[in-house]
């Protein structure tokens, strides 16, 4: 009996090893002929030194070892990410120009006319997914739970002020979505970035803020803030006491997603090859450790899954944006 188990275990392990080898072998087989022959440009649609920029610069360092050519990061900020995205979708679809594709690029499309569309983009993979959450000051006795918070919002429409990192950002959409799904009336107040909204929050000018798990982990100290709820599928290990909105019967999952995309028309085998290469880079323990320090939760999704995620996000955001108009 016992021996039988061990044998089974061995077989399972052997199969797993074979499978994983075959997957690796498969990936190696998929390497397109004559690619890559020259450096790849990676367009970062936000300023140098920001969270998106730093995260992808680090990822590119690990990925270029696997791909074998340098990946040159180029910052094209402006227009909330639109400038760089337009540059990306207008580039030659030869696999030598890729760039980041964030949730911000989806919210732009939901909010206003833009010079690109979801169809112009060929998703490669998701790299970072940072769940959003609601926080209040630790010493704020009005809200013990997320129910208290939402109830307060219902009873005092427009009085419960929640800070965002700017109009039209994912945080803004988060508040509008909760207002819609939980039938409450939180008042968004827009600040020029996460830092400014945090200052207003600590200075008690607003009641709560929306941020992401990573932002809380890296910039807040113990005792400054309390997480009321997370907008993720499951609870976050770092905040075991904070429920998800799903648990509370509000089916709303929202995260700041950061992925990689190429212009439409880039050959399928290049897309798949790059996705596999970035996937491998993302498994490097050193990369994982660096991202953890920066508070950027890693999450990989392949080309097709990432496309579906973007499509789903777009539908959710568009529905919310309609209410805004």
């Amino acid at each position, binding site marked *: 009996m016992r021996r039988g188990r061990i044998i089974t275990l061995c077989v399972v392990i052997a199969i797993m090893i074979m499978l994983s080898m075959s997957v690796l072998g498969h990936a190696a087989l998929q390497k397109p002929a004559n690619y890559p022959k020259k450096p790849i*440009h990676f367009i970062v649609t936000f300023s140098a030194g920001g969270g998106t920029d730093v995260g992808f610069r680090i990822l590119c360092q690990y990925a270029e070892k696997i791909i074998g050519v340098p990946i*040159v990061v*180029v910052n*094209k900020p402006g227009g909330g990410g639109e400038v760089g995205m337009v540059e990306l979708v207008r580039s030659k679809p030869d696999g030598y120009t890729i760039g980041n594709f964030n949730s911000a690029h989806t919210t732009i499309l939901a909010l206003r006319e833009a010079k690109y569309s979801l169809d112009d983009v060929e998703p490669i993979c998701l790299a970072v997914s940072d769940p959003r959450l609601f926080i209040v000051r630790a010493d704020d006795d009005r809200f013990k739970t997320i129910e208290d918070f939402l109830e307060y919002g219902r009873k005092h429409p427009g009085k419960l002020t929640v800070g965002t990192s700017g109009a039209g950002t994912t945080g803004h959409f988060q508040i509008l979505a909760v207002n819609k799904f939980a039938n409450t009336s939180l008042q968004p107040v827009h600040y020029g970035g996460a830092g400014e909204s945090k200052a207003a929050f600590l200075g008690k000018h607003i009641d709560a803020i929306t941020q992401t798990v990573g932002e809380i982990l890296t910039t807040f100290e113990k005792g400054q803030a309390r997480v009321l709820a997370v907008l993720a599928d499951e609870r976050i290990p770092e905040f075991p006491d904070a429920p998800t909105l799903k648990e509370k019967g509000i089916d709303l999952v929202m995260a700041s997603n950061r992925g990689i995309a190429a212009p439409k028309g880039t050959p399928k085998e290049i897309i798949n090859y790059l996705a596999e290469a970035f996937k491998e880079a993302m498994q490097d323990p050193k990369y994982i450790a660096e991202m953890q320090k920066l508070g950027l939760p890693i999450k990989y999704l392949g080309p097709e899954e990432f496309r579906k995620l973007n499509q789903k996000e777009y539908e959710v955001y568009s529905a919310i944006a309609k209410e805004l*108009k």
Partner: protein
Amino acid sequence: MGSSNIDIMSSLSLLAFAGLLYILSGDFPHAAAGYPHALLGLLAGLAIIQLATAIVRRKRQALSSKAPASGDNRAAAPKGLPARVLLTGVSIIGYVALIPVLGYAVSTLVFLLGLMWLLNPKHSVLWVYAGVAVASTVVLYISFGRFLSVWLPKGILF
């Protein structure tokens, strides 16, 4: 051209500018329009005040057709645009328009050589100027394009 004439002209241009921006703001949602409309109104009001005072001033000058206005205006308006200014302005605009076509390096070299030659009154010590132009282009191109990783526009040559 007297200072009051300049004031009348600038007031009218400001009014036209405010009017144009107002027309262009027709599709702004209500919440986004309040602040810019208030500013446009303010600009138009101020321009009208300036226009009125300038007209009054000009009439007074015409009546007392003595010395030209000294008024409160210290603006030393240039007597028309000197050719050199116009030339410089046009070459700057031409330079920027050329960048996407010829690329940064070539258009900068062409611009520097051209404008230095045009501005140099006697066209003397040409080789010094050419040297400076070439050196500046190389320094700009290498230090920014290479060391500071500015993604310089490429043109037909490089």
